[in-house]
């Protein structure tokens, strides 16, 4: 059965690479956008020596971790955004009459290879930033470095899926999801100290986005949390991601039952 999903991904890649010029431009512009995002941090530090009490070194680590995790999630499940299109046009029908699971099938059918350019760039960026920031490596920190992008990716992926589910009830409200997906990435890139209390509580600890960049970066660079959070907080990211997936799948199940198949 998993072979079938693999074949779907292959087919999607073949369809996309048919328009060669456009695909090339797509990959290039995706990759470029990661560079631009990294450059934003440098621009910010051009006009201010510290941001939220942190220097360039720490903020770059946060930013690189968060962006890498996000780009990975975006590559794997980002196209679930297209769910609202499927719901609006009733295109989910064709997916539902096949003997495969709906969510993996959709992800495979819409797999956007061009986003690989972005992941490649952000992984290089993470490496460069780590060399520049040069933390004192200990086994725990190495483990944290491996764990954080995986858990972060899982968390962002869950947010993508949960956000997309909104379309089952409110077809035109796709933009709400953007606040948590793209907004979540923006949030996670900068120190949690700069945000007002309510936003920090909801996005940082409610959704768990402070565990994607902020806390792991503090752990890697050996900083204490000025907000008073304990050191071990960064280790909670896998648990938070797992919980987020639980909610995402619950939403998904309920949503599918709610599907109305209009448009014909």
């Amino acid at each position: 059965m998993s072979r079938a999903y693999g074949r779907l991904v292959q087919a999607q890649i073949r369809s996309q690479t048919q328009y060669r010029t456009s695909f090339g431009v797509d990959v290039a512009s995706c990759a470029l956008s990661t560079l631009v995002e990294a450059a934003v941090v440098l621009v910010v530090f051009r006009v201010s020596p510290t941001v939220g009490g942190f220097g360039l070194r720490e903020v770059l680590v946060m930013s690189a971790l968060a962006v890498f995790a996000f780009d990975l999630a975006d590559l794997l499940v980002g196209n679930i955004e297209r769910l609202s299109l499927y719901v609006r046009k009733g295109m989910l029908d064709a997916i539902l009459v096949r003997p495969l699971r709906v969510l993996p099938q959709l992800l495979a059918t819409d797999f956007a290879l061009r986003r690989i350019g972005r992941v490649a760039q952000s992984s290089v960026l993470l490496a460069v930033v780590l060399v520049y920031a040069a933390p004192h490596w200990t086994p725990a920190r190495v483990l944290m470095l491996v764990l954080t992008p995986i858990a972060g990716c899982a968390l962002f992926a869950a947010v993508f899926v949960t956000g997309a589910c909104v379309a089952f009830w409110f077809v035109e409200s796709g933009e709400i999801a953007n606040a948590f997906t793209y907004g979540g990435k923006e949030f996670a890139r900068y120190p949690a100290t700069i945000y007002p209390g309510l936003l920090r509580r909801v996005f940082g600890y409610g959704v768990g986005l402070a565990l994607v960049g902020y806390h792991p970066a503090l752990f890697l660079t050996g900083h204490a949390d000025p907000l008073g959070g304990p050191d071990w907080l960064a280790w909670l990211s896998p648990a938070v991601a797992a919980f987020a997936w639980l909610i995402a799948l619950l939403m998904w199940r309920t949503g599918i039952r709610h599907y109305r198949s209009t448009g014909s």
Partner: protein
Amino acid sequence: MTATGTMTAIKTETMIEVRDLRKEFTVRRKVGRIRRESRTVAAVDGVALSIARGETVGYIGPNGAGKSTTLKMMTGILTPTSGHVRVCGLEPVPRRRRLAGRIGVVFGQRSQLWWDLPLRESFRLLGFVYAVPRAEHEARLRQCRAMLELDEFMDTPVRQLSLGQRMRGEITAALLHGPDVLFLDEPTIGLDVVSKQSLRAFLAEIGTRGDVTTVLTTHDLADIEHLCRRLIVIDCGQVVHDGTLEALHARYGSRRRVVVDLDEARALDVRMPGVAIEAIEADGRRVTFALDGVPAGELIATIARDGGLRDVSVREPTIEEVVARLYRG
């Protein structure tokens, strides 16, 4: 004796069983400039039907009658509000994936194929999706290619196919995994006359083999006349007729017509029970009679006795007539 016994056993195996099926939708309507009112509408309102293995059933009704909604509940796309559905003995929504392997679905207005890839690739992919054994897959594909003449466009990307070609591809796609039940939702919509005919011939061929159960919704009643022994008519979410085409005619009193052309105009004094003059045209030289259970021969013989009869034609009642009356009903 035993052979007949087995035959009946196969014939009576129920493939689709629907009881008290209901699907409600909440519809939001604009009232005034800002306010909106929501109310519940039953798109399917207590449908019951039972379809045996090998039957080809036409499922018709006016736009918005609940045809597609029923079909979507039978295929596991929509969750019923209440009621009982079993297809191949499975409850569609909870057993969706299992059921999907045993049914084939064609939506006339939606494609199952991969838009940017050649038809051949779509078929290959479906083989993997449905996990069909290679030999079986190839045997069925070979058959469809021959019968539907797919060879000339097997390597064309789907987006470049004509509608008729694409439809032939869609039907093949729905059959490659050897489904027990085939759901066809307006398969002939938008097709030209030739494409319609070849598609009907193919479906008729499948129907006569007797191992595939077919449910067909359509607005083209000629599809029904060519393919279906049994007809289920739905209106306002309820079944208003379930039976043969003949039964439908009988029930709604559709009448055969006899049109006679005379050499010259004259009054025809035909006083037979069950015969009525429906129209007099061409300055009285053409008369149309409507017959209610009277054999046409009797009437023609009566008219011919008086001479001056140039031409006679007998017109069978059309299904359009009955259905239009039923829809308006």
